[in-house]
């Protein structure tokens, strides 16, 4: 038991290599978490992050196939935009279903997850993106063009941190500014509290909902593109699945604040990274970390309820 935990900690923070691995794991969680924070603050329940992460990766992969020789930085920028667009369009689609037909975004985003997952399965399993020359279907694409891999900040080989981490930090600052300081953020928070009053007070709430779904999906899409071009270099469902749902947990545990999401992403990134080492050292299944993720979320939700009860008692006291 003690050995498992100590190896978990060593695996997460024990060396420069471990630390870089933790930050690399935290990067996509943070991006998805930020997108979730923005949607959930508006009480728009986008839970299609899994699909949006895949869509971002797929869109960026597709872009990498047809972009010709471009200066390196421009090429990377195109891939970033493609990642944002892939996730954003999928989010927007759920938004349109809501504003046009009144479909609950909870249903539509989950259903779109399945469509995207099976589309990817088709493309990789006998479809046009399958790795050629293999006699067995590997359910993965060939490696991406090495010229298009995202720049590395620190480290090398298996333990390196790509520049998506900088993007994620930048996105954290921008999300915090957006929510707390801009008129759009004001509208997002107001929408979460009372959309009727917002509509009476001159805001086109359908448009706002579309903007929120677009931004929320785009951040998840960027996470997917970063994983593909910064870490895995091959399009594989296994490396991408789970990021979306972990990102939702990150947002919730982070108290629906960008800064909180950052701390939560670092925590869960460290857990995921340490889990690999823990399995090697102590034989403890890495799946335990997923269970811990769930438990942490449960405890945070219970704590949130408990705080609310506390506040209610005090506010009565002042009534």
């Amino acid at each position, binding site marked *: 038991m003690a050995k498992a935990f100590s190896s978990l900690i060593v695996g997460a923070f024990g060396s420069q290599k471990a630390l870089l691995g933790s930050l690399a794991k935290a990067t996509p969680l943070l991006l998805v978490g930020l997108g979730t924070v923005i949607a959930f603050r508006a009480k728009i329940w986008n839970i299609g992050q899994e699909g949006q992460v895949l869509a971002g990766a797929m869109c960026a992969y597709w872009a990498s196939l047809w972009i010709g020789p471009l200066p390196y930085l421009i090429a990377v920028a195109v891939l970033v935009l493609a990642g944002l667009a892939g996730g954003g369009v999928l989010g927007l689609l759920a938004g349109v279903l809501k504003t046009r037909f009144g479909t609950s975004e909870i249903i539509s985003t989950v259903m779109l997850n399945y469509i995207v997952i099976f589309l990817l399965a088709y493309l990789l399993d006998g479809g046009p993106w399958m790795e050629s020359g293999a006699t067995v279907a590997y359910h993965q694409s060939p490696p991406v063009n090495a010229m298009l891999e995202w720049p590395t900040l620190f480290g090398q080989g298996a333990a390196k941190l790509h520049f998506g981490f900088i993007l994620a930090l930048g996105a954290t600052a921008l999300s915090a500014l957006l929510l707390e300081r*801009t008129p759009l953020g004001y509208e997002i928070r107001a929408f979460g509290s*009372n959309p009727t009053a*917002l509509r*009476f*007070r*001159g*805001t*086109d709430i359908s448009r706002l909902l579309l903007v929120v779904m677009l931004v929320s999906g785009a951040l998840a899409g960027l996470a997917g593109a970063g994983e593909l071009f910064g870490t895995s270099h091959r399009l594989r469902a296994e490396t991408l699945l789970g990021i979306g749902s972990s990102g939702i947990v990150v947002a919730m545990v982070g108290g629906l604040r960008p800064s909180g999401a950052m701390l939560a992403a670092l925590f869960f990134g460290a857990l995921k990274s340490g889990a690999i080492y823990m399995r090697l050292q102590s034989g403890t299944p890495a799946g335990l970390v997923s269970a811990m993720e769930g438990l942490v979320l449960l405890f945070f939700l219970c704590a949130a309820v408990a705080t609310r009860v506390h506040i209610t008692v005090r506010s009565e006291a002042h*009534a």
Partner: protein
Amino acid sequence: MENLLSVQNLTKRFGAVTANDNVDLDVRKGEIHCLFGENGAGKSTLSACLYGYYRADSGVIRFKGQVAELNSPADALRLGIGMVHQHFVLVENFTVLENIIVGSPDLGILLSKSAARRKVEELCLRCGIELDLDREIWQLSVGEQQWVEILKALYFGAELLILDEPTAVLTPQQSDQLFVILDGMRRQGLSIILISHKLREVMQSDRVTILRKGKVVATVETSTTTAEAITALMVGHKVTKRVSDRSVTPGREVLVVDRAVAIGEWGEEVLCDVNFTIAENEILGLAGVAGNGQKELFEVLMGVRTLSSGGFHLNGEAIVAPTSREMLDRGVGLVPDDRFREGLIPEFGIAENLVLGWQRKPEYRRGPFLDRGKINALAAHKIDEFRIVAASADLPVERLSGGNAQRVILAREFLHARGLLLANQPTRGLDVAASEFVYEKILEKRAEGFAVLLASEELDDLLRLCDRIAVIFKGKIMGIVQPGETTLLELGMMMAGNASNLGGQVNDFSSKALRQ
């Protein structure tokens, strides 16, 4: 007459605030006993103690002569004390009968609706309530929903019924119906505690206990006193009621509504052929029983509901397919009747609510960001100017009292509106002093040259404030009258659907509505 309930020396403190200070109260069997006082006088706290929601810090509550230990509402219910809250606690898509019997201890596992139905029908008969027990709650009017709450309390065996501001959500006619029902209950030997700050309701009770700042000022027999005396006891001084300055006469026309027709959700006409104008320096009153198209009319003028035919002009320009954005930009101010739903963001503080609708205005921005400093300074200024009582400008407005929340809306609208002010029930739920504050501000705007549309159920107030009064009934304007040349009686008849030129013949319904 014996005392059903007797309260001695009840004190309830919240931190440093003493909400109830040595309160004594006796409620006799078979009486309507009114608790009267301004917002924050301690009426609601007292009733919450009687209902077991709060525990009194000291004092004795006796019910039927026995000392009552009230630790929870369940204790109160068991003893026979029932409460009807201002906000109903009903299941929208259950039927009336289901709502009444849900939670009943003798329900068992299998619903035996037929026995329950007989019991409820008998209760209805005894109290004179006419209600189809099989309709679902959402199909009922607000007044009918309240009857369900009352029936529910009676079904549970309440002998003392506490009604917390029961008419705050009712039309005058629904209020009158409620009092007929309460009267029937009194005759059955039931006792009623009525919390109110409306004088005309107080005058229909048997006795009234007046609270001021947590203390009982007096308990008087209603028949031996006057409304003026009670008001003076409540506020501690005399209240001057403002009237419109008739020397200022209306100028050019600001708003012209021309044959406006709007269709409701079920295809019914909610506005039919509505025509009126409002000029500068003019307050046009809109009298009518709630639910006769007032809300829809305000929604149309605010750009959140579309007309199916007809239209309106603002400052001489035809307004075609407006949005709420356009109407705000054209200088229209709206004080909505449901202030927390349509006028405020409950989780936002006063500062942020003051710029709601104007959050993108360059004035409140520095580059792409909201200018927090400027908005907070504005809030500090408005809290002062409108005498808003709040711990801080960041306190979520959902924690403000109704009167203070309304002041936040007034501050915002009076700051941004230019030329036209739409006020729908601006004094609903407010006490006398707070209402006068609202009227004072509206009269100031009239003097500045605003055109004002003022809908209210307080006909006396309309008569003293308005330049003209339009009466709406089932979406139709029944007529537009001059306050000096009309009486309450005539207004009431028009509100009940009779055209304005009817003679002295008065039907039973409207005369009852206007007895006060």
